[in-house]
Every structure is written in structure tokens, then in C-alpha cells.
């Protein structure tokens, strides 16, 4: 019987091969290729050869790198803080028993399930300066008069991107936090009550310390993926009206399509992820 069985090594190699080759072709080779390109002086279709770190120096000197880094930092910080804090509040609220709790838990999955690109298209309609629903609500509340274009001002533009991003991604932190909260034994709270702790103290001295690893996981996850954001920012701002908004990645696409210098933008590898 055993003679027909492939050896462990052979079978393992065989099953790993397709995945290995695909990752090699779509991740390893392109990264090496991009690193190579970043050291070449490419204008149009002519490659003038090796220039060392000149492209990196160029992109820092133009100042656009710093500007887009600033935008990225604000965006990253904004989304992470918003999604951690609001995520925790909502998770705590959904951890208390109330009528319809399961329905609400299912409901918060919906924004997460919608692909980011469609979320962006949908919200870009709602956020329209002239006839968007978002501004309409603000007008009805008397907060905005006339037209307000959120995407003219870099600060406002990124703020809106942060809000839309949070609409889609807060459910993830909520779900992770709920999973963590459910694992906390009730006896700990009973002990805290015996010691005379009020709810805030219970949260501070029981919930938070136990949740620390869970919070850390959510934080790391969101931090990694926040630097991957592209479609949301691109569709909402169209890469930015006057260029400042748009994180790093938008800048790289813009450079690629508008200028002839292919090598210059290739340095984001080293700073993000």
C-alpha cells in the first residue's frame, strides 16, 4: 500500500510549487525589478543607465515626497485613532445584552462587505459639492450654506477620506474587539464590583489590561493596511485637485503617468509597509 504513496518531501514540494511560482512571479521578481528601475535614469523609453541614488535625491528635492508623506501621516493617524476609539465604543455597546443585538451585529458587517472601490464611488456621489446628500443634511441642519467642496482643501479632503475609510473599516475593529470582550470571564467584573469599582474603573482596570493583546492585533492590522489604501483616495479625490491630497501611492501613479521619470518614485518600498 505505502509504496504507491508519494514521499512527504515530494508531495510537499509538489503542492507548494504553484503557489511558490505565482508569488515569485507576482511579488518577488517585480520588487527586485522595481529596485533595479529605481537606480536607472529612464526618460520616456530611453534608459540612460545607472545613476545610483540620484532618483531618490531628486524626489526628496522636489518636496512632493514630503508633502505626500504629510498627507499620508494625517490619513493614517486619523483612520487608526478613529477606528480604534469608535470601534471600542461600538464593541462595548454591542457586548451589552439588548433586544435586536444579533441583528445589529450582522448589520455592521455590511459596510465591510462592500468592496472599497464601490464604497468610494457611492460616497463620492453623496459628498458632491452641489447635489450630494451629505451636504444636503448639513444644509438642513444649518451647518453649511451654499456650496462646500470638501475636496478643494487638502485638510478637509483627507478628513473626508478618513471618515469614509472609517465607515468601511471600523466594522473590522468592532468585530475583533467583540471577540476579545466575549473572552473576558464575568468573575473578574464581580470581583471588581466587590472591591467597589465603578463602571469606568472596571473598564480601565479590568477590560483594558485584558484586551491589550487584542487591541495590539487590531492596531497592527489597521496600521499595515492603512498604508495600502489606494482606490478610496483615488476615486474620492481623483488624486487631489491641486495635488497636495493623495497619499504616497497616489503620488506614485501620478508620477508614472504624467512625468517621464519612471525611476524617481520607486522609493516608497523602503519607508512604508
Amino acid at each position: 500500500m505505502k509504496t504507491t504513496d508519494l514521499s512527504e518531501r515530494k508531495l510537499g514540494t509538489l503542492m507548494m510549487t504553484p503557489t511558490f511560482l505565482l508569488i515569485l512571479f507576482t511579488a518577488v521578481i517585480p520588487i527586485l525589478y522595481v529596485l533595479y528601475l529605481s537606480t536607472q535614469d529612464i526618460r520616456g523609453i530611453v534608459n540612460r543607465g545607472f545613476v545610483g541614488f540620484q532618483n531618490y535625491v531628486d524626489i526628496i528635492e522636489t518636496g512632493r515626497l514630503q508633502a505626500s508623506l504629510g498627507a499620508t501621516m494625517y490619513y493614517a493617524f486619523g483612520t487608526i485613532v478613529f477606528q480604534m476609539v469608535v470601534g471600542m465604543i461600538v464593541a462595548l455597546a454591542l457586548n451589552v445584552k439588548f433586544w435586536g443585538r444579533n441583528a445589529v451585529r450582522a448589520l455592521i458587517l455590511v459596510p465591510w462587505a462592500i468592496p472599497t472601490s464601490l464604497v468610494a464611488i457611492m460616497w463620492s456621489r453623496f459628498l458632491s459639492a452641489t447635489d450630494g446628500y451629505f451636504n444636503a443634511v448639513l444644509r438642513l441642519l444649518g451647518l453649511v450654506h451654499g456650496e462646500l467642496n470638501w475636496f478643494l482643501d487638502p485638510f478637509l479632503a483627507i478628513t473626508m477620506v478618513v471618515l469614509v475609510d472609517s465607515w468601511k473599516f471600523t466594522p473590522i475593529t468592532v468585530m475583533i474587539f467583540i471577540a476579545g470582550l466575549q473572552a473576558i470571564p464575568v468573575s473578574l467584573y464581580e470581583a471588581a464590583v466587590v472591591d467597589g469599582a465603578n463602571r469606568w474603573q472596571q473598564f480601565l482596570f479590568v477590560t483594558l489590561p485584558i484586551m491589550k493583546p487584542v487591541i495590539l492585533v487590531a492596531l497592527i492590522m489597521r496600521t499595515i493596511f492603512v498604508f495600502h489604501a489606494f482606490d478610496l483616495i483615488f476615486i474620492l479625490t481623483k488624486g487631489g485637485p491641486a495635488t497636495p491630497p493623495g497619499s504616497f501611492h497616489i503620488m506614485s501613479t501620478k508620477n508614472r503617468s504624467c512625468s517621464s521619470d519612471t525611476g524617481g518614485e520607486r522609493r516608497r518600498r523602503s519607508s512604508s509597509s
Partner: protein
Amino acid sequence: MAARELTGWLKVVHRLVILGVILAVIVPFYWMGVMSVTPQRYVAGRTIPTMVPREPSLVAYSQIFGITEVPGATGRSAAQMYRRAMLNSIIVAASATFLALVFGTAAAYALARLNFPGKNAAYIMILGSRLLAQITLAVPMFIIFHRMNILDTYLPLIIMNTSFCMAWVTLIMKNYFDMIDSEMEDAARIDGCTRLGAFWRVLLPMAIPGVISVMLISFPFAWGEFLYALLFTSTAAARTMPVVMSMFLGQFAIEYRLLAAGLVIGVLPPVLLALIFQRFIISGLTQGGVKG
């Protein structure tokens, strides 16, 4: 915490938070629904677009499916483009999900149960590939696909989507296989099953919840993937639905209700999948640590 009742003002705050969450999720969908059934003149150019359906009709939906003729050449070609894009999206997302599941599960089994040379290196490579932002790979892959002469076909999209999803599938399924005790497979092998047979007949059936949860993560990703679909296509031949929808955005010749109806239809498959298979998603998310 879960068992204790809230009292007084805390209860009020709690109900307000819940209400806020419900509104935040539902209101955008309500707006989209209203937009999809209301004629252009009640929405476009209004400082306060109508918040309740006026003269509601499902004409936009039937227009987008080609049952009713769309007035205007731009609108007509838009509806046609949308239908083609829908087909493209289905082909790309379905093939990518299927391939990612096959390759990823095989690799996950190899990583979880077998010993072979280069195992750790392969694992690190897959994990590392997940940390790369899509945009980093866009330029070199564009050049590579250009050289291979397959730009503007399904292939680059299927390849890239498969590659991204496959990495998640491998990592999540490896965790899943690690959690399942190998005793059952050992028993099957003593009874004369081959290694592969034990994987196929014993382990995989036990891992079905894991397979469903990775499918639920892969399909919506490929369905909504935007960057590569934008860069690697140039005609309607391979453009996927998100790209076509984003092109509709700034065009005033296309009625809002057509745009909204297109969005509603595009959003439905992933949302329905998520609601039907809720419990699988949460376990998959918390295990694999995956975005969406």
C-alpha cells in the same frame, strides 16, 4: 460585563450609540435606493436632493439589464458597458477565487502537515508578499504584462487577484489545519489511504468552514479590485465593474439613477454573501487578520 443590565443615563447613552450605528449603516443605503428609483430632476443640481422617492420606478434597473432602452447615446453605451463589465467582473472574480482556493489550500496543507525543503522560506515569502502594497507591484507588473502582450485581457487581472487572494488563503487555511488534530488522518492512512487521499477525504471535509471563510474574503476582494483593473485594461473588453462605475462618476449625460442602480446591483453579491455566511466571516477575520 455581558450579563449586567445598564441603568440610568448609561442606558440612554447606550441606546443612542446603537441608534447611531444603525443610522450610519442604513442611511447611505437608503439614499442610494432613493437615488436609483427617482428621476434625475429631483436629485441632480438640487441643493437638497429629495430624501423620499418621488415618482418611483424601477426603470433604471431594467435599463441597466437591457430590458428597457436608455434614452440618449451616452446612456445607451453606458448601460452596454456596464453589462459587459459585470460579465468581466464575474469571470475575473470567479476564476481568481477558484484558483486561489485550489493553490492556497494545497500550499496550506503542505505547510501545515508536510516537511519539505525550503518550507520556512516559502512561508516567509508568502507572508511577506501580503505586506506589499498593490501599488508597489503596479509598475513592474505593467511592464511584464506588456512584454507578455496580455494587457487588456482577463489574464493579468486573474493572475494578480489570484496571487493576492492565494496568500490569504494559504495563511488562514494553514492556521485552520494547524488547529485540526492530525489523528484522524493518521487513522485513515493506517487504513490504507494515501497522504493525498487523507487530505482530500478526511482533512478537507473537516475544514469546510475555513474554506468558506477564505472564499468569502477572496471573492469580494477580486470583485471590487480597482487599481490593477484600472491600470491593466484600456478597453471595455476586460474592464471590470468598479472601473466602469468610477468612469460614470463625472459624466452628467448618465442619469444618477442609472449610476445608483448599477451600484446597488454591484454591491449586492458581496453583501448577500456576507449576511448569509456571517459566522464564517467573523471566525476567518479574527483568525487570519485580514482586511477586506
